[in-house]
């Protein structure tokens, strides 16, 4: 079952990417593609790039070199789109509040630069897992991308939690899916980049593909299943009848 080119392998490679394209269509139909433009482009590109890669893998006339070149180019564009998605999520949650927007920008740049340096160091110290540069190169590139991506997403969750800000439901779903995907992929690529065993690589591929499938389903869930509407009454604020604060309020209300 856990063999390359088994039925499960074909399904896990094709299905999530078809679902991702359907997700992009749903975003378009609901007019959400303007609000989540980067994610919309990521969904289209991610789905098409992976399906192209799948075709390159199964069509016998495609040479191995061409396959790896397609993988390289797809990976680079996907990385740019993922970072655009993270930037979009950041501006969506912190942008409306000027008191936090500037600090958020400074911190995200600082964290981004630190993560790039850490990822470069990790890549420099990673052993070469394959004699072909075209094969171990993408492994290292993926490891580098996932270090930066998961670090940025962790920072996003910690920063918003510290300030008690909530992303809207769809943004939360996007974040959660990306975070699960990037953390799992980081762990598997770190092992893959340091391991030359074919059997281990195939199992790690299955784990990656299954996780990605789960993440696409998470995005579907957060997009399609509406949020439970709690029966909210007006938020009560503690009552303290002190005239001076009412005078302050009146002064505050005066132009």
């Amino acid at each position, binding site marked *: 079952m856990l063999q390359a080119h088994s039925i499960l392998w074909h399904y896990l490679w094709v299905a999530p990417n078809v679902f991702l394209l359907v997700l992009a269509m749903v975003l378009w139909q609901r007019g959400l593609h303007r609000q989540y433009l980067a994610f919309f482009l990521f969904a289209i590109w991610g789905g098409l790039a992976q399906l192209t890669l799948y075709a390159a893998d199964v069509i016998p006339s495609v040479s191995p070199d061409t396959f790896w070149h397609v993988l390289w180019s797809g990976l680079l564009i996907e990385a740019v789109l993922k970072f655009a998605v993270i930037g979009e999520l950041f501006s969506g949650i912190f942008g409306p509040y000027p*008191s936090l927007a500037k600090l958020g920008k400074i911190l995200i740049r600082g964290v981004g630069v630190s993560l790039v340096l850490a990822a470069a160091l990790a890549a420099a110290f990673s052993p070469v897992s394959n004699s072909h540069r075209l094969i171990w190169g993408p492994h290292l590139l993926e*490891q580098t991308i996932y270090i930066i991506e998961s670090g940025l997403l962790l920072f996003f969750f910690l920063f918003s939690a510290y300030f*008690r800000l909530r992303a809207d439901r769809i943004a*939360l779903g996007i974040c959660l899916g990306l975070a699960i995907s990037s953390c799992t992929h980081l762990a598997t690529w770190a092992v893959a980049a340091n391991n030359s065993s074919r059997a281990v690589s195939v199992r790690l591929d299955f784990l990656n593909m299954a996780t990605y499938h789960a993440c696409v389903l998470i995005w579907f869930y957060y997009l399609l299943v509406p949020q439970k509407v709690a029966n*909210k009454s007006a938020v009560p*604020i*503690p*009552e303290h009848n002190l005239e001076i*604060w009412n005078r302050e309020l009146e002064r505050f209300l005066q132009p």
Partner: protein
Amino acid sequence: MTLAIALVVLAALSLIFILRITVSRSLQVSGESGLAEKIQPIDVEAFRNLVDPAEDDYLRRRLSPRQFRRVRRERLRAIGAYVHVAGQNAALLVRIGTSALEGGDPLIAEAANRLVNDALLLRRNATYAILRIYVTRALPALDLPASAVLNSYERITASAMLLGRLQNPAVPVRIAALH
């Protein structure tokens, strides 16, 4: 292999943190009814005295250097406690404000947006102030910039009052204690 193990551990820890934050935030959403009761009133005047530079100058003149350092450490500890509570109140007000934002009334939404913005500013300033308090306790010669926290706190008190009044016009409200 050491690097691979380190990356796997980091990835696992990151995922655990992220899932924990997501779950805890989801639980918070369902339990937002009693938030206002958790706000701790702050004695603004007492805090204002604590951060008044004139008070520090007076104590510096009246006390020996050794006594002054001891008293200043005590005052810094008290200021830290106030700032900590102000920061926690700000966090609660962010949650109250964001809940109010979800309502349909544009007047309430505008007041809630102002409250959230002011509360975020206070939370940020409180974080800065706590850091500076730690530095100042280590290096007592530095001045303490607590006035930003005080100003922010006074502003969000007004914002909270405005939001409270808009949501419940019959009830006057405040979030800071007074003498």
